[in-house]
C-alpha cells in the first residue's frame, strides 16, 4: 500500500448561507486556502471527489455546477458520492492507492437551510415502509436515545455531559455555530424538545462546505512538515431498518474498528450528530478514558450536511499537523441513527501505515 497523508484542510460553517445551494461561492475560497497551504494550484491536483446531495440543494446536478469552482479546462479527473464527503475521501484514497494519481482534493458542501433538513432526510429511508410516514431525523434519533435510556446503557446526565463538554470546547472553534458550555445541571433543567431529546442534544442545522487535500509519499513530505499519514481506513454498514438492529449498539462501528489499529489514539473526532450517539461510538471503539474527544466541539457545535464527517477527519488531521498529537482518529457517519460508519486513523509517521 502507498503512504498517503492529509496535507490540506479548509472549512466554512454557518447557520444560514444566503447564496446559491450549488455553493460555488463557498468552495472557491476553500480551494484557495488549500492551494495556499500546499503551494499548489489546480493543475497539481490529480483527482477531485465531492460529497453532496441534490435533495438538499433542491435542484438537479448541483454537484456538476459545483465543478465550476475547480475550473475544468483542461478537463479534470473527477467523481462524486451522494454521501458525506468523508466517503469521497475514501474514494480518493483508493484512487491514489491504484497508482493512477498522487494527489487529490476532496470537498463536500450543502445548504441544509434551503429546505426542512430533518424532513428531507426521510428520503434516505426505506421507500415502502418508512418514507411515506416522513420519519424525521430527530424522531429516529429520539427512538434510539430512548432505547438506550430504557436499557440502562446511558442516561440523560451522560448525554448532557457530552453536550457540556462539546459546547465548552466549541468556544475555541471559530467555525462553531453553537457554543458556550454551562453545566450539566443547567442543561438538564432545560425543557424537553423531542422527548427524550432536548434541543442541545441535536446537532444544529448547519450550512457549509469543507475541503481536504490528500497526497502520497514525497508529494506529501514536500508540502507539509508533519503530514497526517493515514494508517487505517475502513467503513461498514448496518441494516437500514430501525427494527432489525439493536439501537444501543453500532456493529458497523465495531466492524470498522476491527480493521484498524486504534492503540495509542490520543484524539478522536467523532461524528455523532446526537449526544447519545457519541456514547454508542465510544463504547464500540473502546477508546481509553484519556482520549480527547471532539476537541473542536464536534458536530453538536456545527454539522453541515454532507460535510460534517469530512470536517471530523480534517479536525483530527490538524492535531497531527500542529504537533499536539501523534495518533488521531476521525469518524464519519451517514444514514439514519448511525447506520453507516467510517474510521480514518492518522499519525505523524508512516509507521503502521496500512499494509
Amino acid at each position, binding site marked *: 500500500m502507498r503512504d498517503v497523508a492529509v496535507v490540506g484542510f479548509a472549512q466554512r460553517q454557518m447557520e444560514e448561507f444566503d447564496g446559491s445551494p450549488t455553493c460555488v461561492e463557498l*468552495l472557491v475560497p476553500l480551494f484557495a486556502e488549500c492551494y495556499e497551504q500546499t503551494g499548489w494550484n489546480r493543475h497539481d491536483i490529480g483527482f477531485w471527489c465531492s460529497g453532496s446531495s441534490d435533495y438538499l440543494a433542491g435542484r438537479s446536478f448541483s454537484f456538476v455546477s459545483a465543478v465550476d469552482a475547480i475550473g475544468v479546462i483542461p478537463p479534470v479527473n473527477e467523481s462524486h458520492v451522494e454521501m458525506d464527503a468523508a466517503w469521497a475521501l475514501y474514494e480518493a484514497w483508493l484512487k491514489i492507492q491504484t497508482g493512477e494519481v498522487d494527489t487529490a482534493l476532496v470537498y463536500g458542501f450543502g445548504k441544509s437551510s434551503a429546505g426542512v433538513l430533518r424532513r428531507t432526510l426521510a428520503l434516505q429511508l426505506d421507500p415502502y415502509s418508512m418514507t411515506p410516514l416522513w420519519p424525521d431525523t430527530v424522531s429516529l434519533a429520539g427512538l434510539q436515545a430512548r432505547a438506550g435510556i430504557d436499557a440502562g446503557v446511558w442516561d440523560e446526565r451522560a448525554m448532557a455531559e457530552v453536550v457540556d463538554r462539546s459546547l465548552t470546547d466549541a468556544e475555541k472553534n471559530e467555525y462553531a455555530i453553537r457554543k458556550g458550555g454551562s453545566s450539566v445541571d443547567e442543561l438538564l433543567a432545560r425543557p424537553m424538545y423531542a422527548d427524550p431529546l432536548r434541543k442541545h442534544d441535536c446537532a444544529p442545522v448547519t450550512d457549509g462546505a469543507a475541503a481536504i487535500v490528500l497526497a502520497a509519499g514525497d508529494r506529501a513530505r514536500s508540502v507539509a512538515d508533519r503530514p497526517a499519514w493515514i494508517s487505517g481506513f475502513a467503513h461498514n454498514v448496518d441494516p437500514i431498518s430501525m*427494527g432489525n438492529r439493536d439501537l444501543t449498539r453500532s456493529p458497523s462501528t465495531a466492524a470498522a474498528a476491527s480493521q484498524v489499529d486504534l492503540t495509542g489514539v490520543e484524539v478522536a473526532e467523532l461524528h455523532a450528530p446526537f449526544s447519545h450517539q457519541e456514547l454508542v461510538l465510544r463504547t464500540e471503539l473502546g477508546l481509553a478514558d484519556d482520549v480527547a474527544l471532539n476537541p473542536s466541539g464536534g458536530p453538536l457545535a456545527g454539522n453541515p450536511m454532507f460535510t460534517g464527517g469530512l470536517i471530523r477527519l480534517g479536525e483530527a488531521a490538524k492535531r497531527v499537523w500542529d504537533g499536539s498529537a501523534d495518533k488521531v482518529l476521525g469518524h464519519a457517519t451517514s444514514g439514519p441513527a448511525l447506520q453507516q460508519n467510517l474510521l480514518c486513523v492518522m499519525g505523524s509517521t508512516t509507521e503502521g501505515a496500512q499494509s
Partner: protein
Amino acid sequence: MPRTLSAPVTVAFDYTRSTGPVIGRFLTGLRDGVVVAGRTSDGEVVVPPLEYDPVTHEATTGFVEVSPVGTVTSWTWVPEPVKGQPFDRPFAFALVTLDGATRPFFHAVDVASPDEISTGMRVQVRWAPERVGAITDIACFEPIGDEADARPAGGGLLEDHLVTRVVTPVSLDYLYAASPEESAFYRGLNEGRILGQRCPTCQKVYVPPRSACPADGTPTAEEVEVSQTGTITTFCIVNVPFLGQKIVPPYVSAYVLLDGADIAVLHLILGVPADEVRMGMRVKAVWKPREEWTYSLENIDHFEPTGDPDADYDTYRHHL
C-alpha cells in the same frame, strides 16, 4: 436590499415502485386489514418481512400473520410535525413489537402529550378508512386500556389480487437563492439591462455571470453590460409538443451570442419563418411591456431579426 434574490420552489415527483413478492405480500395484507410478518432462518418474526434472509440470503418465503396489537418498545415525541407525517399536531413515533412478532415495527402513535405514552404500553393498529396497499393503510397506533377492547385482525388476504405496485408522492419545499452574480443578472433584467461578468484570467464575459469561471475556477468580478443585439450561433426547430409547452410548434429555440459576451444565451426566435432561421443571423431582444418586468429572463419576450447582413462565421466559430 438583501445580498441575493430568492424565491420559494417546490420539487415534487410521484415515485412508482414495483413491490416484489415479499413487500407486495405485506402491503396486500395491510390493504386487507392483516399484518403479515416474515420468518427468518434464525427464528425471528419480522414486520415488515425482509426480502432476503439476513443470514442465509435466501428469498423470504415463510410468512405469518401477526396481531394488530402490540407493545411499545421505544418512542419519541414529535413536537413540531413536518409535512406528510401521520398527524399535523404533536404525536409520538414509536417502535411497536406486535404480538406474534419478535422485532419492532415503526409507526406513529396517536397520543396528545408525552405523558400519555410509555415504553411497555399496549397499543393497537388504527386502520385507515380507505386502504390501498400502502404503509399508510395503518393510520397509526392507539393506546388500549383493556385487552378485551382489542380489535381482531382482518379476514385474511385476497390471494388472487396481490399488490404489486406502490406510488409514493414526494414533495419538497425550498427557499431557492440565486448566487450574488445571478442576483445581479436578474436585477439588471428588472431594469431592462443584460449584465455579464468578465473572468479576470481568461477575459471571457459570462452571461449570466457565474460565481466562478468554469474554465479557470476564478471568480468573475468585473460587471459588463452587454448589447441587446447578437448573433444566432446554433438553433433547433421545435416540432414536438410536450407537457407545459407555452408556444405552438413549430418554433425556433436558438443560442444567441450577444455582442460583447462570450457565452450564448438560449432564447426564442420570432418574427421570421422557422425555416428561414440560420446560423449567423443577426437578432435583437424584444422586451415585454415594462409593467410586466420582473427578475426574470422572460422579461425578454423573444429575439427577432435586425435585418442586418449575417455575421461572418469567424466572428462566432469559437462560441459554438
